[in-house]
């Protein structure tokens, strides 16, 4: 896509935003009825697509600039190439973000004109001034960053990296700004003893933005975006690996896939805790949100989330397993038996501890920290070791155990009201469905994955990686990870929106339409899958037209792999 075409697309997006904002000021604008999907699902589809594109264009530049910096510092051209290739895809998807963003506002105004007008009026400064300015600023810096890539080399590379940092600052501020109205819809600002309706009338813009779930949502989305960007980088690498014509290309894309997965998994390790933080704040805001989420209408959505998280952790560990197979000398790598013992003991010890000393009791931390640090401190003094293969096999076992604990429900029913004895956990085992057990499961998944990466790191140091010789199945693992990460984002996005129950803005603006009920998980899964596939089609197309088409040109540069700084 040429620059003028991209600009046209962006202009269209902006015009739609401004046009629809103006339309919102028309009093009593009539609503439209979307055929087949209904209004709510129509908004859901467009909003989710917009968020997926936005997540990538905000998450990818974070590690793009880090990768560029690493390339500059290590004088390794692979990092620079990775950064530039991901940036090429980002630029295309940036246009799609603007387009779907405009479409989102348009659909929202057409379907829920009164509520949309109300929301815009409450956040007028953001929607009319701050957000458009940030968006324009980001557009300028993004294109400047991309188009100065080849021109700002050598001595001017630091300037280019600084531009990348600026892009990320603007992007992060944009995310935090738009999270204001989004989180406000879930947890509108309130003050103790005051009526929420009256308080909103007098509340400042900052009061509305700085609501209960704003900070946790910011953190959750920021980390989630990096995870998502990493897995999409893995997807790009997998596509390019499959289409590579020679061993040199395969070696590069094998490396790129590894880096993408490393970024994705590295950020993924923090996500369960960010999710907890968000859920904690939501429950703190209104305790009735908790049972709705965990025990009633949405409880099975969380079962599905547990299944997805388990699959993602299994797949990321499997990728490490396949990666280790192509390291020559990996059989020499051994690990302390203490590490394996801690991996096995962790879920059981921590379930017991957290049951006795619930979070945030520091006693539980006093048990957890020594336990996980035990292998680091005493490992070298214990002469017993196990092979890296055996240790990773134990880590797989513990991922399954951890996931089994995560997914064990209190009852196999969608709502507590329908719980009968034949579907309920026996009383003696009900602790398996409580938070101490779920926290232990999350810690176990994270710990064993970290151990797998430590083993891999040792294998790299003691052996030799044969890039490009990885098991071809690994490419499907990378694709699986990206697909599953997108699907999980869609699922959790639906959960966050549904937490507003039959309100547009929780407890403040009711949704009087006939669609304000909680949909079934099966219905949601159909749409989440559909949205994921549409996103995949667009991303696949973007990868093909940006990277495959320019492959021949790129070859000319790759033939002379001089250090970036020297160019």
């Amino acid at each position, binding site marked *: 896509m040429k620059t003028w075409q991209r600009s046209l697309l962006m202009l269209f997006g902006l015009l739609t935003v401004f046009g629809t904002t103006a339309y919102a000021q028309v009093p009593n604008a009539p609503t439209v009825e979307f055929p087949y999907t209904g209004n709510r699902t129509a908004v859901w589809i467009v909003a989710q697509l917009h968020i997926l594109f936005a997540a990538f264009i905000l998450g990818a530049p974070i590690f793009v600039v880090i990768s560029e910096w690493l390339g500059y510092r290590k004088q390794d051209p692979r990092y620079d190439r990775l950064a530039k290739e991901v940036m090429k895809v980002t630029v295309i998807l940036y246009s799609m973000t603007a387009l779907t963003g405009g479409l989102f506002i348009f659909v929202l105004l057409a379907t829920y004109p*009164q509520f949309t007008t109300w929301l815009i009026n409450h956040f007028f400064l953001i929607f009319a001034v701050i957000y458009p300015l940030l968006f324009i600023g980001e557009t300028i810096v993004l294109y400047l960053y991309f188009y100065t890539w080849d021109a700002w080399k050598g001595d001017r590379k630091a300037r280019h990296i600084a531009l990348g940092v600026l892009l990320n600052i603007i992007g992060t501020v944009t995310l935090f700004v738009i999270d204001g109205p989004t989180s406000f819809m879930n947890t509108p600002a*309130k003050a*103790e*003893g005051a*009526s*929420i*309706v009256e308080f909103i009338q007098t509340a400042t813009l900052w009061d509305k933005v700085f609501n209960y779930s704003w900070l946790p949502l910011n953190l959750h989305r920021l980390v989630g975006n990096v995870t998502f960007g990493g897995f999409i980088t893995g997807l790009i690498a997998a596509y390019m690996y*499959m*289409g*590579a014509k020679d061993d040199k290309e395969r070696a590069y894309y094998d490396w790129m896939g590894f880096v993408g997965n490393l970024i994705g998994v590295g950020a993924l390790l923090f996500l369960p805790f960010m999710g907890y933080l968000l859920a904690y704040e939501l429950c*703190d805001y209104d*305790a*009735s949100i908790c*049972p709705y989420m965990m*025990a*009633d*209408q*949405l409880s*099975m959505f969380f*079962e*599905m989330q547990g299944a997805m998280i388990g699959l993602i952790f299994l797949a990321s560990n*499997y990728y490490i*397993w396949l990666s280790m197979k192509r390291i020559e000398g990996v059989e020499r790598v051994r690990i302390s038996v203490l590490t394996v013992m801690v991996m096995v003991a962790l879920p059981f010890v921590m379930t017991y501890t957290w049951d006795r000393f619930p979070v945030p009791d520091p006693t539980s931390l006093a048990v957890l920290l020594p336990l996980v640090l035990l292998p680091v401190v005493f490992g070298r003094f214990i002469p017993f070791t196990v092979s890296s293969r055996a240790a990773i*096999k134990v880590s*797989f076992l513990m991922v*399954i155990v951890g996931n*089994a604990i995560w997914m*064990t429900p209190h009852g*196999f*029913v*969608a*709502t*507590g*009201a329908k719980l009968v*004895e*034949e*579907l*309920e956990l026996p009383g*003696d085992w009900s602790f398996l469905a409580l938070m101490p057990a779920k926290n232990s499961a999350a810690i176990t998944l994270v710990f064993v994955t970290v151990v797998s990466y430590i083993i891999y790191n040792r294998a790299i140091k003691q052996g030799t990686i044969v890039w490009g010789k990885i*098991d*071809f199945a690994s490419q*499907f693992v990378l694709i*699986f990870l990206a*697909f*599953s990460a997108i*699907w999980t984002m869609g699922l959790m996005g639906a959960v966050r929106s549904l937490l507003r129950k*039959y309100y547009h803005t929780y*407890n403040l603006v*009711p949704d*009087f339409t006939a669609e304000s*009920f*909680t*949909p*079934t*998980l*099966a219905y949601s*899964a159909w749409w*989440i*899958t559909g949205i994921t*596939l549409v996103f995949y089609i667009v991303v696949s197309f973007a990868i093909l037209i940006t990277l495959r088409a320019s492959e021949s040109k790129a070859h000319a540069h790759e033939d002379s792999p001089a250090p970036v700084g020297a160019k």
Partner: protein
Amino acid sequence: MNEQPSFIKNVVKKGIVGAVIGAVFFGAATALGFPPIFRYMFVAYAALGTVVFILLDAPALPTFGGIKAVVALLAFYLVLSVVYIGGASLWPQYDPEDEKGKIVKLLEAKRRASEQGKAEELLVRAKALSEKADSIMQRLQTLGGPTVAAPAAGGAKAGGAAPASGDIVALGKEQWELQECYNCHKLEGKGGKKRGPELDNIGNLLKPDEMKEKILDPRSWMAEGFEKEYEKKKMPDKYKELMEEKDVDALVAFLATLKNPAVNTPKPIKKK
């Protein structure tokens, strides 16, 4: 060439081990009193473990590209889509019908107060009047003279099937369900997750006015032994806005009937 037989051997070996583990899980879960659904769940985990361990020792997939790769990718996406939709559909599904009537009742007052509600109410009234006028005209035409019009069909039922006005306790019980008080408070041994006290004997401990005060201002009273929950403001301070006064009165009337001294409802302590 030797990879294929050794892989089959691997599948058989792991399959047998997985089946044994699955059988042990099933037996142990039965002995420990787990309902059948949980026993199957444990067997499913054993099956998942078996698949994972078979994959770990599976022979390397040879590299392929071109049209074969495209077809493999499309098939892979199809499998993923089917598995995810199928997997989500296998979990118990919440029935939206359980919620729809409840939402209408909960939002009734707000709907009436809203612009949309006013417009809809006007439309309903206009429609009812129009039907009534048509009915009168028809009768006049049939009888050839003026007569008393029959009530419009459905007009009397427009308000829904509300309980009789005297049955305030039944209305209060309905509010208990609508506001989902059972999520935090146990009653007759049902509901509650230790977030709030059991209320079976609350009628003997609080006067109706005090109950009303607690509902409208959760900081006004604290249940003994629930200091932590009180400090964390577990009871939402929202009912003064979500409920109409008549609904609060009905809920209080229902709570006032709860006088079962056999249940140890904690003593309320005045805080404000």
